[in-house]
């Protein structure tokens, strides 16, 4: 057989094998992102559930707060990362309102239900942070693969694009203002 032909066939086989290998790595990385995204959903749902219970406890004490002081949050299946970020932000704002309201109701702050839920919310937030970090670690790895040559070519051929990170809540990024006046 013509040696040139053999060389061409060998090159094609090697390129094909390389393409398949990189393609599989990209697919696996994307699956890991999906798994981590589900993990984020679970943590968001848990946070939502505990937050709902806290709102119920607060409303039973704050009898004079007739209007809905808490923004309605919708959690649905297949939310985009942007929607999840928004839902998370709203939950954070509602939580901040709960803490602010509790300052006006000492009996609420002293109640066992409220304190139990405080601990539950702290734990749920730790889980949410873990989900966020795991998701972002997987996204970072995937995005790095997409921007590095020659994986970027194969990623482009497959129509893959960079994924969005799950961001920290805006309020947590701001400097904490401490009021030490009595």
């Amino acid at each position, binding site marked *: 057989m013509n040696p040139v032909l053999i060389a061409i066939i060998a090159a094609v086989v090697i390129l094909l094998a390389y393409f398949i290998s990189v393609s599989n790595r990209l697919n696996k990385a994307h699956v890991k992102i999906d798994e981590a995204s589900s993990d984020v959903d679970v943590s968001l749902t848990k946070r939502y559930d505990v937050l709902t219970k806290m709102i119920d406890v607060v409303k039973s004490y704050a009898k004079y707060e007739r209007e809905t002081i808490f923004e309605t949050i919708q959690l649905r299946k297949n939310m985009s990362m942007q929607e999840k970020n928004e839902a998370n932000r709203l939950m954070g704002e509602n939580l901040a309102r709960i803490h602010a309201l509790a300052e006006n109701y000492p009996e609420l702050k002293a109640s066992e239900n409220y304190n*139990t839920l405080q*601990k539950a919310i702290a734990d749920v937030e730790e889980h949410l*942070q873990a*989900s966020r*970090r795991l998701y972002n670690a997987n996204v970072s*790895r995937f995005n790095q693969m997409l921007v590095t040559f020659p994986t970027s070519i194969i990623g482009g051929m497959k129509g893959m694009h960079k994924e969005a990170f799950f961001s920290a809540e805006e309020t947590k990024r701001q400097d904490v203002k401490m009021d030490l006046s009595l």
Partner: protein
Amino acid sequence: MEKMNRMRIPIIIWSIISLAYAPVMIYIVATKLVIHWDGSIINVVYAIASFLVAAFIFERKNKAIEKLRDEYKLNYVAGILDSLFPGVYYEPDESIPRQYLADTKMVYLGDRYSGEDYVRARYKNVLFQQSDLLIQALNQEGRRKYKREDTKARGSNSDYFVCFRGRWMIFDFNKNFRSNVQIIQEGFRVPAPAGSRRKKESPYDPVTLESDKFNKGFRVYAQNPHDAFYILTPSFMERIQALTAHNKYKMMFCFSSNKLHIAIHGGGNSFEPGSVLKRFDDERVKEAIWKDIGSITQFVDELSLDNNLFMN
């Protein structure tokens, strides 16, 4: 303390006798069995008698050391532990039960399991257990000689391979989690004999965290990566790094069933009286015991295991 100092004397005497007798024994064996060997039974009798005398001296010395060790542990160590940890359980001849380690899959549990200096107590309301452990497995030579189920304590040390020798501690952990997470410090080797069922360092999947520095110093494995990120927050990773930087022995951590296991391979023999060549005094004895206790309490302090913010 006077009693311990009196107990030093027979150990020193038997040590001197053994040092003096060693060349005598070598001379007898060399001359009777090698240089002047003429096949006569009397030479063999001389040689056997010299071994018997050596065995007697060795046995007396060991007995004296054991008596001193018992006195030290039962009267001094137990007393200090009792004053620091009310309700402490301390048993010098017991160890952490083997089945407590089985679920962690940290080290190969082998064929021989022994330990000493079992302590169970609370510090800052955190329940902990610790003991020295020696875990051995039959090596290839040993497996040729013995069936695994026959061994129990049979065979000499040369038939065995050390899987783990050091200190093992178990602490209640202040977070609830469902799956196992292992953290192996770089340089901590988890040996298993060739041909054993344990092929990989860990049966769990590797996890890469965001901190490059942490990833360089430690290898993390987890059944569920979420639990690895949940337990290993950035501040907790920093605390682990600070803790291990202060310790000369390499460590392995495992979070399992809401407990933290810490294995310190080669981590010394805890609660031992030390050299008998120097006189025992209150200060030296207390310092040695405090050092061993400190290496337990440092984990609670430096890892903030008493922070129960997340526990109901």
